[in-house]
């Protein structure tokens, strides 16, 4: 993985590759934190699209897969700090779920550098900016997310049975 601080993103500078970043955030903490970054007029790369959920507990890992499938190059999941959940404990469930999910993704061979989990409170506008900037930079270095597109291709190819051995096996099933 490329170090996150190698290039500094300067406003207005054009890049060959602009990654698409999708952020799944909870309303109460991270969404509010991103709002605070706005009211404080902090600047960050325009690559991120925010999807609001009531709670990180609502975020189904399937959405993350779906996002990658739809061409996201990086995904960010963020909510209230543990202990600060607006819904008492939704983020604890989320944390456990994502811990397992990360392992699974790793196993499947997805570079975990593309997927970031962090806690950002409503008061942490600066942290939001830092996180989005870092992830954008990192993913920009990693290049476009190919794994899913390749998988999709493979899936199509496997539908064509063109060798005699395969045909034989196919017919015996």
């Amino acid at each position, binding site marked *: 993985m490329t170090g996150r601080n190698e290039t500094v993103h300067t*406003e*207005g500078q054009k890049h060959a590759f602009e990654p*698409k970043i*999708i952020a799944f955030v909870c*309303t*109460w903490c991270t*969404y*509010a934190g*991103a*709002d605070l*970054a*706005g*009211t404080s*007029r*902090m*600047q*960050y790369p*325009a690559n991120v*699209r*925010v*999807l*609001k*959920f*009531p*709670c990180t*507990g*609502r*975020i*189904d*890992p399937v*959405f993350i897969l*779906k*996002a990658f499938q*739809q*061409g*996201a190059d990086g995904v960010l999941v963020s909510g*209230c700090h543990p*202990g*600060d*959940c*607006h*819904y*008492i*404990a*939704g983020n604890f*469930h*989320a944390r456990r*779920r994502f811990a397992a999910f990360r392992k699974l993704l790793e196993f499947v061979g997805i570079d975990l550098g593309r997927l970031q989990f962090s806690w950002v409170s*409503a*008061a942490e506008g600066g942290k939001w*900016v830092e996180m989005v900037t870092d992830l954008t930079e990192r993913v920009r270095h990693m290049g476009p997310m190919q794994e899913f597109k390749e998988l999709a291709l493979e899936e199509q190819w496997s539908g064509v049975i063109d060798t005699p051995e395969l045909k034989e096996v196919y017919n015996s099933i």
Partner: protein
Amino acid sequence: MSRIGVFICHCGENISRTVDVERVAAQVGTLPGVAFSTDYKYMCSDPGQGLLKKAIQEQRLSHVVVAACSPRMHEKTFRKAVESAGLNPFLCEMANIREHCSWVHEDREEATRKAIEIVGMMVERVKKNRVLPTITVPVTKRSLVIGGGIAGIQAALDIADCGHEVVLVEREPSIGGHMAQLSETFPTLDCSQCIMTPKMVDVANHPKIKLYTYAEIEHVEGYIGNFQVTVRKKARSVDEDKCTGCGVCMTKCPQKKIPNTFDRNLGMRPAIYVPFPQAVPNTPVIDRENCTKFKTGKCGVCQKVCGPGAVDYEQEDQLIVEPVGAIVVATGFDLYSIEEKPKGSPIKGYGEFGHGKIPDVIDGMTFERLASASGPTGGKILRPSDGREPKQIVFIQCVGSRAREKGISYCSKICCMYTAKHTMLYHHKVHDGQAYVFFMDARTPGKSYDEFWRRSIEEEEAVYIRGMVSRLYQKGDKIVVMGSDIAVGVQVEIEADMVVLATAVQPQKGADTLAQKLGISYDKYHFYSEAHAKLRPVECATAGIYLAGACQGPKDIPDTVSQASAAAAKVMTLFAKDKLEREPIVAKVREAGCVGCFYCQKVCPYGAVEEKEIRDRQGNLVKVVAYVNPGVCGGCGTCQATCPSKSVELDGYTDEQIVAMIEAL
């Protein structure tokens, strides 16, 4: 086919400066399903809302997207407007192109493209929005007030005077809080006890107030209008109904050498005690940790001397469940103590001011007890070490406060004023004494506050030295205070007889634990967070819970009382209705799909998932499925992400809606 209307707001120039709003309107106007698309200078204004309503009616719109500021700002506004035009409010969504776009990007092209995408996402989402009926829940018109200091007392009295029942819970054996400990109050120098005790008595006598002292909040369940609060009434060892408050037990108790915390450990008290003579209720409590009977099994004197037989060593903690509709949190503050703090604490200690090591270095609250007529010295300013009157006294302000390196960056707000008051009290009592004050700034905004502060210098002869103390040590029976006077640029050294530290105001210990029980948020110092710093300063983000006093941030008495009355007014506003509308963002179970695994029940933080039996027409049990109680459901959606058969769905955040947004990317 949907007929979506899209409204792009300029927000004056806040959005249009970086986002080409006309291009956004034109572009999204071409999306399938969009029937109408326009831009306007101020969508939230009266004409803006009028435009929206008119378009809904004239264009027969089925859904609405308003692209403007954050939904946290105006979602309610636009949903209301949509409703008044005859559409279900939940068919309206906001696209945030201000906080999340125009304010955070400079490049006009980038920002415009992003705005188009954001709006496009919301257009796809809103297509999947369904009509949601408003849910109404009944309101229990009783209120809980946590904390019996001046904030809690004021809130409780205001609510009770309006005719609603109040349950007041106080952790200490008596109500009164810190205000009961003060000597005189700024800026009028009236005696704190004299204005406080009548209010305490009012609370005790009020027919609508149920008072639990020596009690804590054990557990909170429910939601706005319908909380179930479990109160732990700690064992007092004295039967409150039988006790007449004669106080014989206290005079006869052989154990008399227990430091009196109410007097900041300057005086002593017995093991069976009331914290101070004016305590409400005037019922003693046995401090079991220090009582000989509880430690060794012997003694039992108080039981023998008690006429009405009120002393009960067997008494146990009681758990009482109180149904209430609203909660006022008024847990107040604590003072920062400057000793070294344990590793890992966000707040560091000073150590170097000798507090806790040099007996004549005291904090402001201890000085209050010395100055108080009902205090351990009867109102004489005397040194704790030898009982002598201090002739030179040094006050140090901002100890802990405004010291980022020590972990507290805020101003404690009250110290400038109470230090000025202390110099006056000192001057009134020790006529030949001299007071010095080390200070950074004097912050005295408030009615008659600056005049008060000036008086301490001009009439009461306090010497103010602008600068901080660098070192302080004991030399014989003197305390040498070294510091710099930055106004003059010289070093000063004062041989003081006593030093008073204006230590920082902090939230009460355990504020975080209580917040977790209540489900309210707090900042990094553990002060409770209001819903909006300017517009909703007494409400928590959690509906039905309100804040009063210093638990929300440092505050003086006038501010505390105002906030308490404001919180009470909010409670009364809530109680003015018999039924309450709540957001219909709740989970629903698709019974056909539910396999009855009840994973949802395990993860639900609100305990909203119940079991429901499905029977056929003959009454035979077919299966047991989950049922979400819409009154209890908090709307987090954890159940939905957990359900293996995808049989439970959160209205307003369905898979369909979210996938539609992702696919729009």
